[in-house]
């Protein structure tokens, strides 16, 4: 038996103390991480308060409202034609698509129908907005995952689409082109041929991203099985658009309730994916962009001749009534619930925007995921801040 020296005793105590310190460090306490309001992953100013346990998210609470402009209130003091200027700025990447459901709701109350030519050009601009909008998502989702190249391609090629929209409407981002009863103007000479050239470029863009990302091992590893949304949960939160179709729900306003637009005259299909994860949402949007190009080719070949405006009074009074019209916008279901009292201004306009519902699922879908996946999931849900805050 050896005597324990004082030195050995002290070393023993020091070791114990060191062990304790390590154990204290390993025992993780809850931590609150604030993402945003200024963060590249938030496309604007969305703030998300995330409670973490280690690397895992315990609770997430999005705080919208940094860009709330009160369009529902402002619409109550503007005449019907003036409202389109406001609603342009809801989803600012697909602005023309925002105008259409509002105009359709007003037309329904007035019992006015746009002439066929106007309906076709509306559909063309609607689908061009979709391509311009989703092209940015296709590149942006990659940049959120650390691949920088695709976003440059996206910005480059989206410009071709914006140029075509500008050629008709005069505005790259805020066309303000739709009118009750038709359109502001006809398409310029040579526009159809030029747009066909752009479609070829956009198809090449889709193929390029398909090769760059969809088959990419890192991309699939980071997106497959991440942020799975079962169809029932998606419906209960009112998810719409590609987010819902990526969960396997075969529903598209363009096919199932094509009021006022000419989708029923085209040959196309609705893409769905059974997985409901981030990869599925990316994949469905990529296919939808291709489908939109296909639709546009048919649309450009079939523009009927005729007037672009129906007969409407110069000062528009909308008869009393209520109407809800929704269309399949780039981000999902966008609808306007318009209440009229027969005056020059709407009595109440409820704007049902897609991103609001698409982001309200964030507290549900982020629970239990790891920190890097937070950004993946947010990017794959694809929201525009103006579309949440209105």
């Amino acid at each position, binding site marked *: 038996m050896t005597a324990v020296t004082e030195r050995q005793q002290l070393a023993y105590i020091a070791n114990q103390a060191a062990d304790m310190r390590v154990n204290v460090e390993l025992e993780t306490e809850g931590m609150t991480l604030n993402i945003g309001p200024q963060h590249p992953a938030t496309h604007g100013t969305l703030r998300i308060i995330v409670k973490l346990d280690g690397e895992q998210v315990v609770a997430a609470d999005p705080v919208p409202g940094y860009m709330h402009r009160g369009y529902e209130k402002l619409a109550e003091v503007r005449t019907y034609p003036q409202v389109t200027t406001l609603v342009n700025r809801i989803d600012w990447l697909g602005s023309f698509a925002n105008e259409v459901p509002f105009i359709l709701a007003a037309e329904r109350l007035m019992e006015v129908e746009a002439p066929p030519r106007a309906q076709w050009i509306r559909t063309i601009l609607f689908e061009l907005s979709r391509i311009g909008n989703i092209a940015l998502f296709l590149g942006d989702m990659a940049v959120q995952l650390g691949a920088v190249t695709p976003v440059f391609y996206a910005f480059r090629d989206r410009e071709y689409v914006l140029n075509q929209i500008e050629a008709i409407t005069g505005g790259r981002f805020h066309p303000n082109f739709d009118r009750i009863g038709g*359109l502001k103007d006809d398409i310029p000479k040579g526009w159809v041929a030029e747009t066909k050239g752009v479609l070829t470029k956009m198809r090449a863009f889709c193929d390029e991203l398909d090769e760059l990302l969809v088959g990419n091992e890192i991309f699939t590893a980071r997106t497959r099985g991440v942020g799975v949304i079962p169809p029932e949960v998606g419906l209960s939160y009112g998810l*719409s658009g590609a987010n819902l179709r990526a969960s396997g729900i075969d529903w598209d306003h363009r096919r199932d309730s*094509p009021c006022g637009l000419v989708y029923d005259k085209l040959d196309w299909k609705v893409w769905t994916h059974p997985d409901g994860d981030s990869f599925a949402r990316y994949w469905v949007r990529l296919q939808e962009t291709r489908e939109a190009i296909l639709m546009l080719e048919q649309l450009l070949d079939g523009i009927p001749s005729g007037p672009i405006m129906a007969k*409407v009074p110069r000062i528009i009074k909308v008869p009393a009534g209520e109407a809800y019209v929704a269309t399949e916008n780039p981000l999902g279901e966008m609808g306007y619930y318009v209440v009229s009292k027969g005056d020059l201004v709407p009595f109440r306009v409820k704007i049902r925007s897609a991103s609001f519902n698409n982001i*309200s699922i964030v507290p549900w879908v982020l629970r239990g995921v790891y920190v890097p996946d937070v950004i993946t999931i947010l990017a794959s849900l694809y929201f525009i801040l103006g579309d949440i805050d209105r």
Partner: protein
Amino acid sequence: MSSTEVTETAPASDERRDALVARLGEELGDALIAGHVDAGRDVWVRVATAAWEDAGRVARDVLGLRYFGFLSAIDWLPSPYGRSLDAAIDLEAEPASGEVEQMEQGVTGGETRFQVFARLHSVTEHIGLTLKVDVPNDTLALATWTRLFGGANWHEREVFEMFGISFEGHPSLRKLYLPGDFEGHPLRKDFPLLSRMVKPWPGIVDVEGMPGVADDEGGE
């Protein structure tokens, strides 16, 4: 596409939507107060305040309207500030009528100043339904739908801050957009829009001419 239902003229009757209202009436009994069908286009129902949550449950489980569109509210009080389009040039073209406007509660009627309405949709039958309910003037409270639809959470928070209507049983009823110390409920009709008070709107008469028509009516 195969869908050929798009009709130029609305049909006189609408069996699918009539059946929807009838089925809802069977389940809810007296709690279904009014129904309104715009043939070929849309359908509205108004239910009793006490049956609001039940109505949502029946619509989801019996009628199969599983998709939650939105939930919002309407303030039916005629605006005490007029139509805010009263620049001198506008009054010349469109004189204000001067009548005192009565409170009318839309297509399904109603008895209270505030109504909450929600939109549900069937993703298989492709039919949508707008449900409305009166909110009692004295309590301004209603049962929550958050137990039925996860998405109702944010929508009810928005209605809470914009109209001041509270939802009993909501897990965390707090402001959504506005800062915590904001006072008032902006979407109420008696909430003034100050920017219009300090500076009159340029006017409604300043509209552009119709495309293709010579602008001879003096737009310039």
